[in-house]
């Protein structure tokens, strides 16, 4: 986590967009792949700007938590990173978002290619109505991998990484709906990992699960961060404190103005000694 310390400094003083870009490019040159740099990012639904002025660096191979009260634009921001916002009509994304130095909103970039590199796990487990094997092999098959042996290897690796292999290795032909909620969510993580993404976005991945399943998901996340960059939205502050390396606190202070990033920094510092009064109030449970 040497990298993350370097990023953390940059993120802390919330520099101007251009500066973030140039520094990200410098860092991006020698960093492992899967780092995002956001400068002056804004999102508008129709005429309403819901999120504005977000400058953020997401270092590779680390866990970044997005926290904040409901409606603060965490999930909206997350969906900007794999352009899932494109699928909802009338959404405009402003500013610049780069992944390893490449602008992901460039006209020449196909969001389909981006999503192969930036996977997503959703709030509720959403396995496809097919067997466990077919669920995990779904992405690789889209990428054109057809050889049985190759797919077998990918499925095993992805399920192992998602900490599900031991439980299901004898039942790969089973229908995905026969799994428990927690297992389904880990299946969805495996499904996302099978395309070998550089980044994994998680939108409150444990909020629909029981405490034991939540624990398993958190353990999985801890295991995964050596392999992929993880950006996780969570409502659960203890969870953010437990699993993330850096935390970004977002807030929408009134309906008349867009949400924004209040502060971002190393998780330990954010939870013990935040710079901003509002961060402190939120973390100590005074609102939200």
């Amino acid at each position, binding site marked *: 986590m040497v990298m993350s310390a370097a990023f953390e400094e940059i993120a802390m003083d919330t520099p101007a967009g251009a500066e973030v870009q140039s520094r990200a490019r410098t860092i991006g040159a020698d960093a492992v792949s899967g780092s995002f740099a956001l400068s002056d990012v804004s999102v508008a639904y129709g005429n309403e700007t819901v999120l504005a002025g977000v400058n953020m660096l997401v270092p590779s191979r680390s866990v970044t938590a997005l926290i904040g009260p409901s409606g603060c634009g965490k999930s909206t921001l997350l969906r900007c990173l*794999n352009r*899932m916002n494109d*699928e909802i*009509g009338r959404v405009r994304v402003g500013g610049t978002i780069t992944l390893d130095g490449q602008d992901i909103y460039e006209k020449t970039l196909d969001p*389909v*290619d*981006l*999503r*192969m590199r930036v*996977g*997503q796990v*959703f709030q*509720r487990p*959403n*396995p*496809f*109505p*097919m067997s466990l094997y077919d669920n995990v092999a*779904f*992405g690789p098959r*889209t*990428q054109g991998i057809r050889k049985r042996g190759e797919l077998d290897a990918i499925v095993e690796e992805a399920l192992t990484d998602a900490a599900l292999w031991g439980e299901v290795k004898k039942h790969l032909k089973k229908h995905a*709906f026969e799994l428990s909620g927690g297992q389904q969510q880990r299946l*969805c993580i495996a*499904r*996302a990992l099978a*395309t070998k993404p550089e980044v994994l976005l998680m939108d409150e991945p444990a909020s629909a699960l029981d405490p034991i399943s939540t624990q398993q998901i958190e353990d999985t996340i801890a295991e995964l961060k050596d392999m992929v960059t993880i950006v996780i939205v969570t409502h659960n502050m203890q969870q953010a404190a437990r699993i993330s390396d850096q935390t970004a606190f977002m807030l929408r202070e009134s309906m008349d103005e867009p949400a924004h990033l209040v502060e971002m920094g190393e998780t330990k510092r954010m939870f013990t000694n935040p710079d901003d009064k509002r961060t402190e109030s939120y973390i100590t449970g005074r609102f939200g």
Partner: protein
Amino acid sequence: MAVTPTHKAGRRLGRATRRRAVEAVVRTLIYAAGLLSIVILAAIAIFLVVEARQSIGEIGLDKMLSGTQWFPTGTPKLFGFLPLIVGTLAVTGVAVVVFVPIGIGASVFISEFSAGWFKEGMKSVIEFMAAVPSVVYGFLGVAVVIPWVKATFSLTSGMTALTGGLVLGIMSLPTVISISEDALHAVPDALRQGSLALGNTRWQTVYKVVVPSASSGIFAGVMLGLGRAIGETMAVLMLTGNAAVMPTSVFESVRTMTGTIAAEMGEVVYGGQHYSVLFSVGLVLFAITFLINLAADLVLERQRKRWRR
């Protein structure tokens, strides 16, 4: 002081009794309405069997079902159902070829690739298509499809199984489309999102995730469309030429089971053998459509259970 509570309690008791009585009446009425449909269905079956009994006894159901010649006014009288059954299957087969691809395609388009007023407009048009009387579709067939088939395939007559099947296919579309569209609509959005997030295009998402997830509902829609096509009478009567001979291709005139009943029922002796034979035809038709609808219902029910999580 002592009187009032008893009085009040008495009134309360009266109100409760009345409420219970009303509830009992309403419940009975609703049960009766529900039972009535079962009673009617059973009555139709019984009535068909009773009227068909004479012909089954005199000729034999097996003989009628395996007979290849339908010649009810000749000597000897021949009551072979096979030409009629084959005629029905030929027309229905053509209809299936028409409504399966168009119906599924249209429902996918409406559900997955259209939105807003356009989507609502399309759905209204489909519903309106279902409300058009079959005789009107018959007119359309007579005016447009018969000459077209005749010219395109250089036939001596445009009244063929193909003609009837084409129009039947169009008539069955609303059933197929609206049920398939419902099934596609019921597929949770989370699955679409999941597929898109894995780097699938919208089209890949549709054919790899959404359509397979809705497959049982789409199947049910196709089965109900099939039931509609088999049972349709008026349009086929107007379009197929009604020659009761075993067809060798869809470019020949056929006579369907429904067409036979409708055309001949007016000319038979009430209570005679021919009359009874027509009821046997009806019985066979009833059995076929009943089984198709039952199958479709079972499949639909399974799909409903699947998404109830």
